[in-house]
């Protein structure tokens, strides 16, 4: 009897699950702003080991350029809702960030996520807040000088990143070894298990700056991809997206963006990376008139 009852429970569970899956697509979920207002918490997914965008510093604090930018968004949300909202960070990796966003576990991804057309099928992006491109990190003096030299070499990449996909599709002669996180890939590179590690140039600059021996590493090759970073949010929520975008535009226009840029990428910053003229012009032109 007990057995039969639990069996019925299991069947019921599956039927419910099946029905809920069936019923999707006709759902009218609450907007992100409504959710934040209801729960009183604004949850952001970011990185823990991608200096200077999102990382744990020596004082064991979770900080970074993306985190500082998203704090501006937090202030706008508080102003808009007219009440104090708790600000929470959650770790998100390339492999977990879209599911975290879709499941509602986080409200915004602000890390090092490249805006791509295929990702726009599942999430919406803010303005581009940083522009970089993929390069290779190698031991100083390595014969690898760019993607043209990687045939037959062991190239490390991070699972779910855009450059992993490019290497897999365009450079099938390279032996791709994919790691779920950057520290594992970097250790493998440092131990000679990889001949090169590929990621966005700025991330490699961050890794190099953080390495025990920064002079022992070289970032080589032209950008073999264009990686515009944007903040990602759930699709079809234009009010929330406007809040994020307006915050970024005001920060670029008002100069806070450049103060933050200098804090993290200036000569005394975590990862010195002066902004090029074209990037500056591109950032300014993203700001539409009031």
């Amino acid at each position, binding site marked *: 009897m007990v057995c039969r009852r639990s069996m019925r429970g299991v069947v019921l569970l599956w039927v419910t699950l099946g029905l809920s899956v069936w019923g999707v697509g006709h759902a009218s979920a609450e907007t992100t702003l409504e959710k934040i207002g209801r729960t009183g918490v604004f949850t952001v997914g970011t990185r823990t080991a991608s200096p200077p965008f999102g990382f744990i510093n020596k004082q064991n604090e979770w900080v970074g350029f993306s985190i500082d930018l998203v704090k501006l968004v937090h202030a706008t949300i508080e102003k808009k809702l007219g009440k104090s909202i708790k600000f929470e960070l959650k770790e998100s990796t390339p492999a977990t960030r879209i599911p975290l966003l879709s499941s509602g576990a986080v409200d915004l991804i602000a890390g090092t996520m490249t805006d791509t057309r295929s990702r726009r099928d599942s999430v919406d992006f803010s303005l581009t807040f940083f522009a970089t491109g993929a390069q290779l990190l190698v031991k100083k003096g390595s014969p690898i000088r760019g993607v043209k030299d990687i045939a037959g070499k062991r190239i490390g990449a991070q699972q779910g990143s855009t450059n992993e996909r490019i290497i897999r599709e365009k450079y099938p002669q390279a032996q791709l070894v994919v790691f779920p996180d950057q520290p594992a890939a970097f*250790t493998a590179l440092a131990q000679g298990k990889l001949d090169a590690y590929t990621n966005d140039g700025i991330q490699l600059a961050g890794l190099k700056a953080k390495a025990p021996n920064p002079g022992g590493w070289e970032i080589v090759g032209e950008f073999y991809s264009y990686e515009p970073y944007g903040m990602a949010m759930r699709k079809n929520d234009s009010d929330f997206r406007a809040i994020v975008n307006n915050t970024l535009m005001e920060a670029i226009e008002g100069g806070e963006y450049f103060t933050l840029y200098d804090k993290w990428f200036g000569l005394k910053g975590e990862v010195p990376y002066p902004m090029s003229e074209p990037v500056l012009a591109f950032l300014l032109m993203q700001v539409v008139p009031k």
Partner: protein
Amino acid sequence: MLFFGLAYELRWSVLWTEGHGGWILEGILTTLKLSALGWIIACLLGMLFGAMRTAPVRIVRWAGAAYVECFRNVPLLVWLFFWYFGAPQVLPQSAQEWLNRHGAEFWSAVAGLSVYHGARMAEVIRAGIQSIPRTQFEAAVSTGLSVVEAYRYVILPIALRLIIPPATNESLNLLKNSSLALTIGVAELTFMTRQIETYTARAFEALTAGTLIYLVLCLGIASVMGQVERSFRIPGLIARVGGAEH
């Protein structure tokens, strides 16, 4: 109705279009290869150290216990990192390079899985051996067999039959634990399903496929082990398992 609180339309075709089917197959093959190798070594280690833990010589028992306690009391994930990042560091440069050219990721995963599950298997086998009455061993030795022969021809054959149900459990755990190998860059089944997920952002479909494939693999192994149990049972000794039919 809501599912995870948002609109989500299922698109199962992501599992086989754009070469994703090939990824899944590759993933299954890698998982099976990894688990099979890990399982064979784990069983050998388990038999050796499980038997050692019941040996009549104290130092041998201690050696067996040392192995078991060392390897089962450290998380498998730590062992994987140890065998991949740690252990090769003490090898000469040329050996490290050779390893790197010959799938260091895969073999580190095999090493990690087999020593960890070897320790757990050893405990299962020890339990099997200790469930055999001491008189059986004494009788075997009194016929003129040496201790090793008594183990080889009398004790282990009975113990191995007795432990099939818990050993099945261990084997299934081993197969499932092989998914941890993705942390050191082994492209096994979980890795491949996550790969599909990151390429297509179809988390539900990709992970459901992964779930079902593990389920099928595990059910397959469990039924094979059930078959083994039935065909090798010793009538009168462990035939009671058939009693449930009456």
